[in-house]
């Protein structure tokens, strides 16, 4: 919101530097900065007087003007505007004027006639968009004077008013704040109202059929006004805060709004059927065209101002076409009303209109003093500007007056909340500057009546805040000795996550943070098969559900990186995925998961090793290390449900599915022209966390030497390594402590072409003695026998 410094000075003396004032207001809760607004006209543009206008000898659309620019001899200017006439005062850009950074006015020949300058249109001076004709000025503009002198730039405060302070959305409100901060008096102009028209009841009627939406409605009527442009002072005021000047009545209404914060509406009385106002809620589906030329179909929650037959305005939000005041209006009805904030907000949301009026009504305006003041002030101002006579009396429908709240403040409570002593005198002074009436006091407390323009003040604590903010909240000393209640619980989840993050970062992965909002297709493609939860009001179709897995968003990130020709893409992320579930109140179950994706060489170009892709075996290695660190035993079960995977495994712990690991079919990402296979993994971290049991006691380290046995088996090519590994592990006897598969040999020239050779190293150790060959010979022989008989293996 913009308030003008000049305008503020009508209500309060400001004698401190504006930057300091802005700082003080900001600390008190009105966050603001000082700005300069207004127009500036380039130097060299002066007021000219058109002495003569002739047709151009060789161009129909051009005229040749002789113009007095106050420097002795008049100049000749060729002008193309249709509206130039002799006798006019016009802005003239003289030769040498720089109008824009790349345009300087020069002496020029136009179709053979020399032109010494340019008569300007609005757009050429940055005053508007109009290029239809030149600007014609009133005769009080002095010939030869710089045009810029007629524009005053003004200093304003740009304030970010918080939602609880409707009272501060006007010059009065800001002046009142300054008064409280500086302890200078706040002055309001008194209104002189001459009611010289007929009795109002004889010319207008008001009926309120929706008191819950409109607790108070007042109306005045002025007859015989003349709509005209606003005088310079009003125009300046209106434009200084960034509004457009329309005419005397509209500007006056905006002026009073910006002065008092109370929105007003003026109707053309003659356009009201039956000269009657009816306030009611809309019927469902009722149609209405607002001032912005939008045809609307209304809900029954919308409060309307109507005449005898049809709607005139969306109450407190926006007027309609039909009853708008225009140049022919002579009789007007002024509405000053109080609408229930929640009703206006609902209506404004439903129709998606936010106006200066609706913003104030929905936050809460003053139903009492300010409402009446604004009504009278506007009536008096219109008569001053547009003539006419005010009808006797004011229609006022207010069956159940809203009363001011009475609240006590205990001084020791102030101390309890803030930690400091604030003197009773200080408190009382602040209250009176804020126009709170002190109605009772004793040594321990003060009782005030809160003005009804402060709907935010409801409780004692709110009074504490007033005292605190005006006093400068920043002055409260910081406690140097902090108290601390000892928490009974001690979170272990976050450290668990930090360890996981550091683990994957330590293994060469980059942590990512991806958007949780994804497209429906992406949600449907999730690896877990969850139904995605829809967002009802998405920003776009690309973000209309919540992600159901970690892998799909990582694939999107892979895509984005591949399009930028990035290589070595190794990513991970920890976050929630959402499963739609109608049995919980939010219809959402959240799983905290880890996603990992690799599309990268194992090493990259180097001198020591031939490079390899980081393929499924790389990811399996990471998985093994990760789960091993957490002391989990796991199994992989092949999952054949997904065609896009060359291989996909379910990761199973305690017979429960906790993750997926797999490698995509190479062709799946054809368009991206990836150099390496895409391997992914996802794990349900919340499950792992719940099961995780850190090692409680150490295991004594081996005291006796190990014995190693290497075996090499020739097997069917189709046989699976895991079968043999399981077999050896199961039947390796009590001394088997480690098993490594260290070679896979395929050579059709040396082996049968249906065969491969697998080599294993077995490590045996006892906790109680040094093993001898005899201790394991028996086990090894039995193992050979099993492998030969059951799996057709041959010793190599």
């Amino acid at each position: 919101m913009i308030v003008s410094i000049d305008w503020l000075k009508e209500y309060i003396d400001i004698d401190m530097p504006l930057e300091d004032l802005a700082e003080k207001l900001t600390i008190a809760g009105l966050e603001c900065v000082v700005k300069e607004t207004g127009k500036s006209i380039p130097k060299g543009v002066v007021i000219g007087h058109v002495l003569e206008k002739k047709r151009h000898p060789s161009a129909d659309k051009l005229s040749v003007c002789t113009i007095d620019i106050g420097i002795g001899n008049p100049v000749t200017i060729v002008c193309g505007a249709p509206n130039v006439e002799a006798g006019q005062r016009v802005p003239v850009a003289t030769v040498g004027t720089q109008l824009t950074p790349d345009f300087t006015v020069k002496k020029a020949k136009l179709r053979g006639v020399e032109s010494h300058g340019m008569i300007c249109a609005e757009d050429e001076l940055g005053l508007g968009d109009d290029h239809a004709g030149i600007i014609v000025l009133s005769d009080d503009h002095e010939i030869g004077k710089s045009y810029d002198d007629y524009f005053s730039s003004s200093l304003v405060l740009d304030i970010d008013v918080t939602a609880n302070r409707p009272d501060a959305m006007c010059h009065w409100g800001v002046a009142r704040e300054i008064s409280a901060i500086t302890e200078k008096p706040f002055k309001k102009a008194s209104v002189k109202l001459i009611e010289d028209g007929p009795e109002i009841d004889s010319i207008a009627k008001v009926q309120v059929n929706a008191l819950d939406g409109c607790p108070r409605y007042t109306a005045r009527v002025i007859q015989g006004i003349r709509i005209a442009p606003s005088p310079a002072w009003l125009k300046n005021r209106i434009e200084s805060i960034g509004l457009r000047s329309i005419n005397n009545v509209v500007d006056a209404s905006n002026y009073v709004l910006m002065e008092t914060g109370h929105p007003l509406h003026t109707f053309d009385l003659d356009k009201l059927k039956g000269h009657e106002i009816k306030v009611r809620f809309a019927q469902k589906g009722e149609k209405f065209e607002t001032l912005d030329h939008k045809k609307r179909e209304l809900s029954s929650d919308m409060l309307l101002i109507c005449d005898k037959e049809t709607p005139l305005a969306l109450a407190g939000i926006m007027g309609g076409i039909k009853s708008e005041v225009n140049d022919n209006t002579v009789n007007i009805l002024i509405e000053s009303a109080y609408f229930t904030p929640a009703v206006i907000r609902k209506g404004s949301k439903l129709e998606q209109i936010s106006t200066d009026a609706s913003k104030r009504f929905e936050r809460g305006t003053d139903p009492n003093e300010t409402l009446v003041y604004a009504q009278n002030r506007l009536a008096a101002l219109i008569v001053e500007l547009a003539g006419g006579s005010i009808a006797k009396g004011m229609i006022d429908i207010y069956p159940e007056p809203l009363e001011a709240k009475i609240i006590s403040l205990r001084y020791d409570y102030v101390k309890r909340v803030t930690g400091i002593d604030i003197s009773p005198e200080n408190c009382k002074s602040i209250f009176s500057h804020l126009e709170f009436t002190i109605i009772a006091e004793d040594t321990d407390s003060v009782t005030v009546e809160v003005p009804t323009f402060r709907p935010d003040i409801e409780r004692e604590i709110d009074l504490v805040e007033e005292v605190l903010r005006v006093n400068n909240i920043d002055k409260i000393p910081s406690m140097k000795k902090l108290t601390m209640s000892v928490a009974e619980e001690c979170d272990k989840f976050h450290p668990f996550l930090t360890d996981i993050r550091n683990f994957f970062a330590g293994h060469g992965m980059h942590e990512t943070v991806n958007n949780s909002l994804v497209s429906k297709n992406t949600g449907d493609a999730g690896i877990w098969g969850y139904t995605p939860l829809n967002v009802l009001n998405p920003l776009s179709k690309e973000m209309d559900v919540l992600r159901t897995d970690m892998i799909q968003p990582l694939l999107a990130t892979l895509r984005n990186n591949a399009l930028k020709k990035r290589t070595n893409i190794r990513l991970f992320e920890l976050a929630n995925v959402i499963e739609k579930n109608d049995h919980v109140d939010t219809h959402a179950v959240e799983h905290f998961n880890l996603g990992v994706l690799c599309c990268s060489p194992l090493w990259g170009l180097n001198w020591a090793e031939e490079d390899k892709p980081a393929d499924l075996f790389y990811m399996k290695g990471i998985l093994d290390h990760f789960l091993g660190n957490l002391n989990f035993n796991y199994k992989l079960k092949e999952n054949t449900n997904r065609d896009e995977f060359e291989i996909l495994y379910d990761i199973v712990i305690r017979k429960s599915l906790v993750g997926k690991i797999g490698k995509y079919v190479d062709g799946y990402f054809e368009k991206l022209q990836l150099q390496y296979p895409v391997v992914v993994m996802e794990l349900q971290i919340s499950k792992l966390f719940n099961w995780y049991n850190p090692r409680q006691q150490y295991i004594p380290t081996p005291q006796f030497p190990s014995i190693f046995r290497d075996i090499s088996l020739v097997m069917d090519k189709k046989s699976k390594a895991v079968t043999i590994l399981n077999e050896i592990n199961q039947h390796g006897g009590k001394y088997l402590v480690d098993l490594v598969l260290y070679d896979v040999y395929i050579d059709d020239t040396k082996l049968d072409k249906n065969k491969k050779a697998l080599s294993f190293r077995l490590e045996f150790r006892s906790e109680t003695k040094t093993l001898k060959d005899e201790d394991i010979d028996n086990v090894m022989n039995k193992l050979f026998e099993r492998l030969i008989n059951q799996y057709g293996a041959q010793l190599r």
Partner: protein
Amino acid sequence: MTIHETIKEVQEQFKDVLKNARDPLMLEEVKNTFLGRKGKIAGFFSMIGEIPPDTRKEVGKMLNELKRSLNEQLELRYAEFQSEKKQREQVDYTLPGYVVHKGSRHPLTQAVDDMLSIFKRLGFDIAYGPEVETDWFNFESLNFPPNHPARDMQDTFYTEGGGLLRTHTSPVQTRYMATHEPPVRIVAPGRVYRNEAISARSYCLFHQIEGLYIDTDISFADLKGTIELFCRMYYGKDVKIKFRTSYFPFTEPSAEIDVSCFLCKGKGCRVCKNTGWLEIMGCGMVDSNVLKAVNYDTEKYTGYAFGLGVERMVMMRLGINDIRILFENDVEFLRQF
């Protein structure tokens, strides 16, 4: 065991340890164990008197033979080490090291970790809440009545079935209090969502850290002391802090906190838009309506709450001027951290 067998066993043992000796230092140890003054061989010689005289000579000869053989093997091994050393001198050790990929932590989660570790030092426990929330926890319990303009401060995504994506981490306050008796001292990190057009300045999701302390006799001065301590721990001891009045429905009084710009030390620069100050968080004394919503005794208990936006702080710190960079996950960006 016959003397022959004993000698054989010593020979075997010797072979084993010799094989395992990886450097001259270990070799020295082997020499001491077997051939030293108190070594095994010396032990055997010292026992020679206990042997029957008829075989004494033969045994003596065998032991001498053993000693000679062990010495010889040791010398051979020494020689091997010498030649290995020479070989090593021919390797080009200026070749680069083997490739070990560098990974990285995302700057956002790093910042969250940094901040949480400070709050943990200040005795805060960590609490969590769901991202898909109910209207009651996200708004009503926090003193945002229906149709209240304060709801406009936070544009909301609604989900099917009547839920919404939490617009702040503040619902963790009431969720936690609803299941815990005071005193309560927690911080709650997490993702929050706003239905705002995506631009350089705003993204549809970001991270917050919420703080809450409820107990008897907690004042605004406690809040200030705690926040100041946090800021000094995070930004360094010279940071200046400024409180100014603001408005949040769930705190009263409410304040915004500015810290002196860490880049220009308050002199004014691009990061602080020449104000010398950076807005970092909101805070206030918990509104009694919030305590009432969770059935706390408002006469007995007071407390404070605060909330900060992680993205904002990270962007200021790293000089990032477009929030989308944080969610783009370009590996060339990520690898910098």
